[in-house]
């Protein structure tokens, strides 16, 4: 615990849902009463031991937590510097960290008496996690997914349908993740009585950024206990990939007040962070704006119109970032860097060959940054990176980029 809370980085958001100037509740009046009710019900749930008892039970028996903290021995030897640990959240049920949060929101939805769950999804991981938990609890599930993503992520679309979810291809706007989020919000505005909107990342109107962070913080809490057990001390550096930023926020949050721990978020640099804007690095290449209920860094043009991001990784393909990251960036507690498609692809392959782990393209970005910094660090420097998802969903994309014909 910090000695005095005034200097703590963990007290946010304030009662208006702000992290500094970021966050807030920029939604239409129709949704405002719903968001206030959600906040009230979440505040009640998070101080209720029976809520967390239910979460802990499902995290253990349904998700498979705690996920291991794994010493990547051959990768460490190969890079020749810092000692690299991976937080193995790709071993969770459904193959990514997304389910940590979905469980929390759906238990809350059940407590609120909601019978219909809606979600947005990009790569499909959050959609699959939501469809999964809805199947488990017998809830109606509707997933909005950009038409373009429906096409390129066909296996996840089929998984969601197998799990009983209705997948709605979104053709509004340009048919991407941000448009899927717009359509989910339009659904929510229309179906206010019975519907719960299960947001997949640490963005959206308050209380979502704080609530999703709280559910994902299990990652960082476990990692902290595990590294203390393995090494008897805290890590020197923690690294995670960022699209909206939920896996990163989950790892970072329990370490924010550990001043000796360097925190690095890795954004998707796409084809390079420059004027062509073919990237998703909101902090590195964007500026503050208001979208999807919160103020944060956004990719936008000079007139405040939102730009499409680009990344090889569909899960990082979002023009915004969670407001708490925007704040951590501005106050300097965390550092944010960008990794290109090419660098992520290289890390993806190296991880497969050296560790026998096929990582998702999202954590491959984090790993690529680890590959950059580890060789220059001393051997007793401890790095924990978040292996937030497995790469089964990405093998088609990777094959295409490597010029490998999958049609055997």
């Amino acid at each position, binding site marked *: 615990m910090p000695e005095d809370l005034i200097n703590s980085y963990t007290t946010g958001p304030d009662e208006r849902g702000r992290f500094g100037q970021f966050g807030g*509740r*920029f939604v*239409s009046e129709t949704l405002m009463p719903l968001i206030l009710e959600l906040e009230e019900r979440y505040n009640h749930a998070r101080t209720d031991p029976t809520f967390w008892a239910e979460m802990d039970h499902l995290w253990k028996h349904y998700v498979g937590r705690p996920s291991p903290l794994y010493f990547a021995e051959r990768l460490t030897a190969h890079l020749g510097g810092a000692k690299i640990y991976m937080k193995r959240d790709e071993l969770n049920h459904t193959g990514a960290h997304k389910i940590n949060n979905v469980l929390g929101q759906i238990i809350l939805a059940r407590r609120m008496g909601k019978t219909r769950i809606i979600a947005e999804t990009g790569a499909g991981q959050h959609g699959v996690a939501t469809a999964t938990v809805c199947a488990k609890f017998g809830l109606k599930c509707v997933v909005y997914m950009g038409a373009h993503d429906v096409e390129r992520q066909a296996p996840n679309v089929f998984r969601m349908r197998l799990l009983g979810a209705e997948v709605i291809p979104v053709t509004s706007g340009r048919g991407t993740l941000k448009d899927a989020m717009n359509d989910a919000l339009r659904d929510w505005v*229309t179906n206010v009585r019975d519907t719960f909107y299960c947001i997949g990342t640490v963005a959206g109107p308050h209380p979502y950024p704080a609530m999703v962070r709280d559910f994902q913080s299990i990652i960082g809490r476990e990692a902290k206990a595990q590294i203390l057990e393995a090494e008897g001390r805290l890590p020197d550096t923690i690294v995670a990939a960022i699209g909206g930023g939920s896996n990163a926020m989950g790892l970072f949050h329990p370490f924010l007040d550990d001043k000796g721990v360097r925190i690095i978020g890795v954004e998707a640099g796409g084809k390079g962070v420059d004027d062509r804007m073919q990237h998703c690095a909101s902090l590195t290449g964007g500026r503050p704006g208001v979208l999807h209920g919160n103020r944060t860094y956004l990719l*936008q043009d000079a*007139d*405040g119109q939102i730009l499409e991001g680009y990344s090889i990784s569909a899960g990082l393909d979002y023009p915004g970032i969670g407001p708490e990251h925007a704040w951590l960036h501005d106050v300097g507690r965390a550092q944010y860097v960008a990794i290109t498609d090419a660098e992520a692809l290289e890390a993806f392959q190296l991880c497969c060959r050296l560790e026998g782990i096929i990582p998702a393209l999202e954590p491959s970005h984090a790993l690529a940054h680890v590959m950059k910094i580890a060789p220059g660090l001393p051997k007793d420097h401890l790095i924990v990176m978040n292996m937030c998802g497995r790469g089964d969903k990405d093998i088609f994309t990777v094959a295409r980029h490597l010029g490998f014909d999958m049609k055997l």
Partner: protein
Amino acid sequence: MSRIDARFAALRAEGRKAFVAYVMAGDPDYATSLEIVKGLPAAGVDIIELGMPFTDPMADGPTIQLAGQRALAGGQTLQKTLDMVAEFRKADRETPVVMMGYYNPIYSRGVERFLTEAKAAGIDGLIVVDLPPEEDEELCIPAREAGLNFIRLATPTTDDRRLPKVLQNTSGFVYYVSITGITGAAAAQAAEVAPEVARIKRQTDLPLVVGFGIRTPEAAEAIARVADGAVVGSAIVRMIGEGRPVPEILAFVKGLAEGAHRA
């Protein structure tokens, strides 16, 4: 007294209800859009709502989403929308113009700068969908200080406990959203709207207009009968999207206005 206040005072004196028409600025292009806007007062429109195009209009249905995309594809910017109002104002000093849209383009331009320019262009009020009263200090209060009306939306989910907060910094008029949903969706039912209007009127003296889900002269009449006015957007915007000639669009608007004015 703002131009909006003056317009409602005049309507009250004449015993008429207000007809409010929404079109998207720059849809399908600047010149056609300006021609339509210029023709609205003669078609019987009492207040013009001018949409500011935005890439991510989360409260709008497909019709207005597409209008925004057409406008943006045609090169519409916030500057051009301001220019359009200034151009309109050269010939019309009476008809109130309310800009309606989303916060980011305004925030991006800078609130102070935007308010100064909007005032100078002859804009009378603002409706910004994603600024609830919880965020009043962002734009609502600065707008009021700059002499612009900030018109709030009240909705079926705005209960009596919350209503005072929604009405608190509202001026000009109150816009009641007749349905839970997006623009251009389900049809508004006068029988359902009437008690809601009465509920809101118990807490405010401001005029109250009703919008969302009104498509025909008959519906405009039925809704205007139970409120101080009716708003039509998507039905007009749809005709613009179909590429109908401007006189045909204005004739349709005239029919809607006559409907509302019969009430």
